[in-house]
């Protein structure tokens, strides 16, 4: 019997079927400087070129056997399509992720915005779809292709001042709820476009709603209803990712309807596993910087083993993998994941 492909392994996991071992993949950015070197690309140039984005995204699979390909590499796609201006830091040699330069909402009175009727063809949404198509045509039969969208609260924090959003979510939750509802509709439109392009799984990144910032009560009352709305509309495999403190909202995260939940290194996985039971998919939670980039290969192996022993369903980073990761650390991570047997 031939060995199953990384794609089959990931899709079986989402389908709740037995796999030979947990896959080692991610729902977030994982391009490496090794991959950039292979093609001679500059990070800042990747974001607006489908060919370069697809080459760079696939390179972590091609070089190291990482078991997925994920695009894009930044968090500004939806905000840009809604009308924000972004900065890709084209003038810098150093790697920086694009950020929002100009917001859409500047005062409380401007919160009543409308979704542009042509949202699905605005900004870089067509470019991301094209990139997914290129990757699918290249290696889509062997490896799962993932993409991501922001959660409504995190997106709200991009199109308006986070300071105002946080205070209003306490002072005027109805007003914030209305905005989140509208943004959920926008997110559903974008995610459905990515589904159409062939994404095998979509991660919803709602890091703005971490318990480091918001109380679990506000998460449950104000944000969870809109996450439920989004996951109810999506047909493909879905993951809900929240970083920072998440132990007190893990059960709510499962209730959102996402097929899997993803947490970072601040989550106590053993405790979360106990709370959510054995039937839910739980992805995480190695530290992609302090372990994968600046740790030793031995530290990487120890961490991966601990994640698996504590009960993750897949070896998966707590956030985007920072590009300067040393090759020997990715190799150690892949090797440890491959060796692991429950």
């Amino acid at each position, binding site marked *: 019997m031939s060995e199953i492909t990384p794609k089959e392994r990931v899709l079986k996991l989402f389908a709740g079927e037995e796999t030979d071992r947990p896959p080692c993949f991610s729902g977030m950015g994982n391009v490496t400087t090794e991959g950039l070197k292979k093609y001679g690309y500059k990070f800042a140039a990747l974001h607006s070129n489908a060919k370069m984005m697809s080459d760079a995204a696939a390179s972590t699979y091609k070089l190291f056997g990482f078991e997925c390909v994920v695009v894009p590499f930044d968090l500004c796609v939806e905000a840009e399509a809604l009308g924000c201006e972004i900065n890709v830091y084209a003038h810098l040699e150093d*790697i*920086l*992720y694009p950020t929002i330069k100009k917001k859409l909402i500047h005062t409380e009175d401007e919160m009543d915005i409308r979704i542009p009727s042509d949202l699905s063809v605005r900004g870089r949404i067509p470019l991301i779809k094209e990139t997914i198509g290129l990757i699918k045509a290249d290696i889509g039969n062997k490896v799962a292709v993932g993409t991501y969208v922001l959660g409504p609260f995190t997106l709200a924090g991009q199109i308006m001042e986070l*300071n105002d959003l946080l205070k209003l979510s306490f*002072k005027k939750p109805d007003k914030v709820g209305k905005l989140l509802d509208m943004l959920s509709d926008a997110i559903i439109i974008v995610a459905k476009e990515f589904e159409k392009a062939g994404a095998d799984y979509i991660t919803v990144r709602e890091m703005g709603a971490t*318990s480091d910032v918001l109380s679990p009560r506000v998460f449950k009352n104000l944000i969870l209803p809109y996450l439920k709305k989004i996951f109810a509309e999506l047909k493909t495999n879905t993951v809900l990712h929240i970083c920072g403190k998440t132990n007190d909202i893990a059960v709510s995260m499962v209730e959102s309807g996402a097929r899997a939940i993803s947490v970072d290194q601040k989550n106590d996985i053993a405790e979360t596993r106990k709370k959510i039971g054995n039937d839910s998919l739980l992805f995480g939670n190695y530290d992609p*910087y302090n372990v994968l980039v600046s740790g030793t290969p031995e530290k990487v192996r120890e961490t991966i083993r601990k994640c698996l022993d504590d009960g993750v369903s897949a070896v998966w980073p707590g*956030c985007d993998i*920072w590009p300067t990761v040393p090759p020997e650390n990715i190799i150690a991570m892949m090797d440890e994941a491959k060796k692991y047997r429950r």
Partner: protein
Amino acid sequence: MSTEEKRQEILAKLKNAVIQYDEDTSKEASKEALELGLEANDAIFNGLVSGMEEVGRLFEAQEYFVPELLMCADALYAGLDILKPHVKQLELGVRGSVVIGTVEGDVHDIGKNIVKMMFDVAGFTVYDLGRDVPLDKFVEEQMKTDSDLVCLSAMMTTTMVGMKKVIEDLKAKNPNVKIMIGGAPVSQDIADKWGADGYAKDANNALKDAINMISSLKKLKEEAEAKKGS
């Protein structure tokens, strides 16, 4: 009611206004403090800051989260704006000016603003560079203002690495400048490795650190006054 009793009453009112994020009461109590002839410093430190200390405790106990923290800060500023013009300059023998900002690539500034607030409270001159600040700008501004302290903030691992370069450049140009770094991904280990003088783990710790720093300044002042009195 004795003057001392009235003083205590106003200080408690200021403290509670901050804890209950009540801007109106904070303004009202600040005016009352001045009318009664309270020292502005007394009202700031034993009223407003004392309230903020309790807010820090509530934050740590996870009774308060960032939205509450921001509203408490608004209440503190509402009082501070009224009291500040009446503050007698602290004679501490230090100039007390600070350059502060969030490093390039990072647009998060809530933690930075909380730290800035405590410098404002302490009567520092604050040169706030804002967020997404090009790395060279920190060095340039420190040289221009001859500030004692530079505070760098980063909320993301990916932008934190930029701090290393700023610390190196600052120390090369001016070995005496003190550098404090903070933000979610920053650790004591990183602060040590990169040669920063101070480190604040998150918004809460930054608040605590800043309060501790202000308290030690207060102590210096009290000692100086005690010497003068003797």
